């Protein structure tokens, strides 16, 4: 993939994506003359609540009978820790995210792209390094002790293919043929069969790290638009139509017919779980970046769902921006990091305002870093070790693995990893989710566990 030299198209594409989301969320018209607000997926109570301008107050514990039994049971239990995975697609340049601004060798490798020491804030744990100017929100959170930085995370024998390397990160192993995601396997061990929200992909499609084999997981772009309307259908007939989704989703012997049936059944279940959200929307206690991108809205919706006590355990979404910066790196990287970092700061402040901050830990990662030497088209080619962050009030807030420097690159001219992503997963499973990593990560015993949680 390549970034073009002219970025109009990129922002226009984002606009269309946003428009798509908006168009999908519009409530259909109510059929005239009908006794109930048919076709909206609302029951009278939700309809009244919306009219009254009430937003989240209808989600008190007493209203849980609105939910399906499984979700109610899950939501009624003790509050569980939540892990959020944010993927920066394309391979983010570690040597820009935290750059060794004073290092002459760095400036020599990056005659055009090198950032100056004055551009960003100095990284307090290693004065050789500076935060990319767009990552000031992360620097702020780091100053509050809420960010653990992994300046060179990767694995031995790094693969420079986007797809292979991302696959390794998604499945939690350097195994090409492993088909389930690492968070999906965690849910297979600890999740239930009646709560698709336990693994939530905030996206138009399932994030591969959540791919499970036994328990259901869900995918939705926004929590407040998940309804099923049909033209010219309302009242009793609409109720019967929606009832028919469950038997249509019954198990079939043909594997792919069954895949479609399963999507039908899971969608039906999720529809019932989210019924209270539909049409009422949600409010946020803090401002999120007002940009042409769904990412801040997705995070705001996530905070609202957590505040509504919906039983989420693992959540995955993709950050805005395009990090495969073979060309035009300065602008592309700054734009993507800017929206990503400001949105995640708003999310953290939102969780803090709602008293949820101790329940949520966010991992920010990319499939690899980039080549230390710039490529001559204002960009960088695929590299090895990259940067990752663990964000939250419960994050330990201390660097994991040292910055390896550019004097000792690997044979391909790439940064060497000083921490292993599988060790990071083991730590998150054991220290945060309370699960034995051996049940989830192949060869777990061989990985050193960094301390990530306080």
């Amino acid at each position, binding site marked *: 993939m390549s970034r073009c030299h002219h970025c109009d198209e990129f922002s226009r594409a984002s606009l269309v994506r946003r428009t798509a989301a908006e168009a999908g969320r519009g409530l259909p018209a109510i059929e005239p003359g009908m006794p109930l607000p048919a076709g909206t997926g609302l029951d009278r109570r939700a309809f009244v609540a919306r009219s009254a301008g009430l937003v989240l107050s209808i989600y008190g514990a007493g209203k849980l009978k609105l939910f399906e039994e499984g979700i109610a049971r899950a939501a009624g239990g003790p509050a569980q820790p939540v892990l959020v995975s944010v993927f920066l697609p394309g391979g983010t340049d570690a040597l820009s995210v935290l750059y060794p601004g004073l290092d002459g060798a760095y400036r020599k490798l990056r005659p055009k792209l090198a950032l100056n020491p004055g551009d960003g804030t100095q990284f307090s744990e290693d004065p050789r390094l500076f935060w990319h100017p767009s990552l000031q929100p992360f620097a702020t959170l780091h100053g509050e002790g809420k960010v653990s930085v992994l300046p060179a995370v990767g694995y031995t024998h790094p693969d420079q293919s986007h797809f292979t390397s991302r696959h390794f990160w998604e499945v939690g192993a350097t195994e090409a043929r492993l088909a389930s995601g690492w968070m999906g396997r965690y849910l297979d061990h600890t999740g239930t069969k009646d709560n698709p929200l336990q693994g939530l992909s905030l996206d*138009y499609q399932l994030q591969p790290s959540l791919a499970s084999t036994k328990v259901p997981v869900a995918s939705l772009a926004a929590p407040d638009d998940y309804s099923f309307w049909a033209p010219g259908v309302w009242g009793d007939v609409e109720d019967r139509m929606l009832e028919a989704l469950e038997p249509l989703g019954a198990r079939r012997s043909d594997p792919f017919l069954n895949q479609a049936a399963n999507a039908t059944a899971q969608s039906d279940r999720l529809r019932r779980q989210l019924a209270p959200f539909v049409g009422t929307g949600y409010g946020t206690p803090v401002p999120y970046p007002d940009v042409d991108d769904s990412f801040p809205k997705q995070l705001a919706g996530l905070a609202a769902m957590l505040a509504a006590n919906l039983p989420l355990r693992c959540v995955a979404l993709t950050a805005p921006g395009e990090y495969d910066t073979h060309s035009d790196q300065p602008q592309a990287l700054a734009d993507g990091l800017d929206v990503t970092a400001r949105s995640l700061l708003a999310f953290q402040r939102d969780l803090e305002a709602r008293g949820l901050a101790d329940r949520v830990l966010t991992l920010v990662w990319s499939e690899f870093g980039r080549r230390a030497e710039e490529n001559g088209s204002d960009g960088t080619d695929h590299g090895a070790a990259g940067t990752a962050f663990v964000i939250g009030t419960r994050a330990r807030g201390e660097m994991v693995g040292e910055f390896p420097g550019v004097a000792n690159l690997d044979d391909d001219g790439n940064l060497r990893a000083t921490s292993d992503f599988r060790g990071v997963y083991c730590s998150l499973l054991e220290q945060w989710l309370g699960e034995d990593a051996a049940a989830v990560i192949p060869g777990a015993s061989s990985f050193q566990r960094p301390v990530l949680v306080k």
Partner: protein
Amino acid sequence: MPPVYRGRFGKPQAERLLWRAGFGPRPGQAEKLAKLGLHGAVHSLTHPGRERLRGPKPHDDHGHPLAPYDAWGHDQLWWLDRMVRTSRPLGERMTLVWHDWFATSRDGVDSARLMIRQNQLFRTHGLGSFGTLLTEVTKDPAMLIWLSGTDNTKDSPNENYGRELMELFTIGADRGGYTERDVREQARALTGWRNDWNDNVGPVNFRYDPRRHDDGVKTIFGKHGRFTWRDSARLCVQHRLHPSFFVTKLWSYFVPTPPSSATKRELQHLYTHSGHSVRPVVEAILKHPALYEGPRMVKPPAVYVAGLLRALRRGIDTEDWTWLLSLAGQQLFYPPNVAGWDDTRWLDTSTFRARWMIASRAIEPHVLKSDKARLPDDASKLLSRAETFLGSPVLTGHTHGELKRFARRALGDANAKWKKEQYPALIENALRQLLASSPDLQTC
């Protein structure tokens, strides 16, 4: 030769063939195709004659003709219209296959003109020589921008195309087919392309400039020579691991389960001995027992949309398909990355809902008004009408039974005179919705 299907070739088989090799039947088309028998049917698809576009001409939400180069989203509608109206469905389906295989996105190319030019290239060479196709793709302007081909120069080589050329287009990763050194040497061989920039038009004047080419000796796959971009493509097609990559990948677009090792061998043989020609391999796959006797496949969203419109005899008359396709996970001209769409992940709770909305939008112009329409108070008759409305697709017993059960129950709710009059039309609308979005119609 690979084995040939010898079972009955009736409507269900013809319907499946039309979906796998195109965008599904128009009403009555599966019955007609079945009469030709397997060989006749496949031949009619692989040798379709001159293209004709049948049915209503496309227009936007305001009734204006499409402006694929200029108006946002019209490039997608322009292509979707061809899928709906073409008399050469396999040619159009192969264009979709190559769009996924050589996945290039307008997100990086920034030009509808260049994207459509590439799309025409796929249409022209889609069933011909793969070597020619690959050579054309290698110098295709959209691809040169997308994978940094015109940024790749003697003085600053860029590995983007060289790597994907081998990993995704011809050989495959993790098979021992090439090394990181081969990636770098391919990048050197591919140097020399450049273009200019015009502020009004964008990238223009794509050309090969020998001064930007690294004319030194390269070592690729253990061979030495002053290789150029043509050699790059040629060496990949001649690579010992290319035929197995090619037939397996091509097969996966038509059959969801991997080919047996015997079939794979026979397809490779066919491919190699035809001089790397695509058509005979596609023909063999379309006649293979696995296509008819094996499991169903999930329809890609574009195929699902085009198929619904074909069944309904509806043309492109709204721009809504662009955002609906995007919600369903397949925005044409915007594959998610250079590896294309992931065919194993079309369906989840998010994309299922998008498909439900697609079905709603497809049937909406014909919605029955419950205060006007008078329909029979009979579940079987209502279901049979809904089936006819959607082109009489072959249904599983389970789906048929559940739809009938729904209609019976809903009719049973009519406990007042106005309900007895109006419910049948509401039920008919609901049956169309449930049928169009049923697991049966999501797969083929």
